């Protein structure tokens, strides 16, 4: 792994919109002149399962898959998924958790309990953990489905990406009728980020 590579793992539950977020992020990386690779999940796993999109950019990228211990940032659309994929995080990496809970089947059917304190457990392991409530912000912006773009806003601030470039990519990739809500959601998301003090 070369040091000039940025690797961002976007995890969530099938249907939450992780794929669009990854694609917008990748487009931004292209606009900035990087080599870029994105790995996506299609097919059966999409049906409500645990899904992951991987975005890597830098001077020259080989593997489209982020190695274990190789992610600079994990962006989790659901808190359980942050813990599931945590071993992919670099030693000094950052975790952004959307404080949202989607019960997996074994929880729904009462076989196991949802680990309520999972976000705190991640925090204990990783100092640089940020917990936001993107779902509430998206609802305030006018559509719960814009939570993915709220999280893109948080990520833009956290990864130090130029906001105007991200906005350009959003305008190019989000359907026209949803654009106003998404632009608003993006800016509100950017405001949610504040660095964890050392």
């Amino acid at each position: 792994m070369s040091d000039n590579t940025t690797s961002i793992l976007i995890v969530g539950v099938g249907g939450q919109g992780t794929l669009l977020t990854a694609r917008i992020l990748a487009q931004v990386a292209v606009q900035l002149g990087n080599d870029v690779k994105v790995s996506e999940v299609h097919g059966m796993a999409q049906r409500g399962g645990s899904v992951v999109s991987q975005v890597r950019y830098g001077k020259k990228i080989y593997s489209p898959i982020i190695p274990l211990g190789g992610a600079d940032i994990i962006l989790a659309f659901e808190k359980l998924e942050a813990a599931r994929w945590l071993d992919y995080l670099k030693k000094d990496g950052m975790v952004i958790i959307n404080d949202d809970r989607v019960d997996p089947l074994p929880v729904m059917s009462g076989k196991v309990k949802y680990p309520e304190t999972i976000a705190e457990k991640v925090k204990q392991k990783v100092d640089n953990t940020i917990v936001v409530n993107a779902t509430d912000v998206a609802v305030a912006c006018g559509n719960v489905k814009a939570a993915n773009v709220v999280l893109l806003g948080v990520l833009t601030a956290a990864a130090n990406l130029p906001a105007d470039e991200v906005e350009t990519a959003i305008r190019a990739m989000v359907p026209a009728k949803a654009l106003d809500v998404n632009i608003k959601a993006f800016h509100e998301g950017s405001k949610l980020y504040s660095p964890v003090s050392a």
Partner: protein
Amino acid sequence: MKRLMIGNEAIARGAYEAGATVAAAYPGTPSTEIITNFAKFPGVYAEWSPNEKVAMEVGAGASIGGARTLVTMKHVGVNVAADPLYTFAYTGVNGGLVIVSGDDPGMHSSQNEQDNRGYGRFAKLPVLEPADSQEAKDFTRLAFDVSERFDTPVMLRVTTRLSHSQTLVEEGEVKPGEVKPYKKDAAKYVMLPGYARGRHVVVEKRMLELKEYSESTPLNYIEMNDPQLGIITSGVAYQYVKEALPNASILKLGFTNPLPQNMIKDFAAKVKRLVIIEELEPVIEEQVRSWGIAVEGKELFTLLGEYSVEMIAEKLGGAAPIPSYGLEKDVPPRPPLMCPGCPHRGVFYTINKMKLVAMGDIGCYTLGALSPLDGMDACICMGASIGTALGMEKARGEEFAEKMVAVIGDSTFVHSGITPLIDVVYNQGTSTVLILDNDTTAMTGHQDHPATGLTIRREPTAKLDIEGLVKAVGIKNVRVVDPLDMKAFQSVLKEELKRREPSVIIAKRPCALIDKQPADKQYYIDQDLCKGCKLCLKIGCTGIYFVEDEKMAYINPNVCVNCGYCAQVCNLDAIKVI
């Protein structure tokens, strides 16, 4: 200007640039998006075929007719297409033909992880393996030239990580699609034994010529670096090797059948330690060993699943294992599951409740095997449900068949469910076959098929009448019922199971993802009536959650699509509609 493309889009682009004008496919992860992208180009013909065998035959005909032709399918689809493919390898082509095999190491969305490079060796086809989207486009384009130059179909073998990874692609110029003249040539295209014997000679000669080509093609090349360690690799594994072992010398193979024997021998002589890194089967390794070259391979790297950068770094780069944060034990698994409002839920809840044996098939409804529905006993391959149900009945008797169903989707039924249904009638089975007709091929992303009445471009066409078809093959008892009408579905099922004659029940309701219910109502759980019995949880719907402390179930209005099935399941009538 370079553009991000998934590998599948790049393959479509490569075929278009090569002047391909015909494409045929059956959807299957990870191959589906190749043809959906190809269909967007102007002036080309693309079709969803009923199954992969038909796609291969349409492709063969188009090629004999002079068109450059693309045929795509997932790895197990090649099994279905194998019969025409093996003999088309004898006849050879007129217009170039490229068949794409989408392999799925790790079985992200498949029932096995067979390595289709084996088909290349068995059917004597050239095999190309790209390692990123740019190569996917360039190799596809080149594959058409190879096909015509050597008069052979060519296999482009890709894997999930190639098909579904986006990498940058520089687009090339488009060669205008020209259809070559057609000339009758029975000795080449009519595979009577007398003619086929002549063609086999041609095939063996062609393999020798292709071997020479393999030595000189730019698709195979050496990156000489530190001679202490030499790696032979192909496909996406090349990317993992480059990242894990930046100093190693590499022989990168893009043209993997037939192999460049001399190039491999030369490379082996230049490096101190030689290791082959190939996912799944030791296809390259066994050949290299057979030439008496000392090599390591599967004693280091597994036959199972996908490889990774860290796996290679650990085995050959001296890297320490990555320490774990140790939270995995806190995380319950999150298997895929049926969507809220899915019509299949009603089928499998009923199968479970009636304790039926269910011989299953391939589609979203295979998820009916998972808890809490637990409604499936077997699932082998596309179309297997009906034949396996008949076999089960012949082994265990008609009484057993009174508690057994075959379960198959509409697209899968058209794919390969019709012939086994004829077998049921012909050999006097009493099977009860459920055709789950959701009016689409849902699992792979909602593709059309002959019974939806729409083409790949969503233009209206003749609509296959499943009910009429089933009657025409000799099924007398055909019922059509909404699977989310619990009482009606159960009573129809009971009647047909009891009958000592074959029956087909068409469980008809469109996929919930394409047929969204109007949001003018909302189901909720009346907290005065809910006793916390958890019966509603047995349908396995993400729209319902249970709060243990309150001993109450709730409906999440953000998830619920108001299909109302849970309200029919609740014994206390606690689930109501606003």
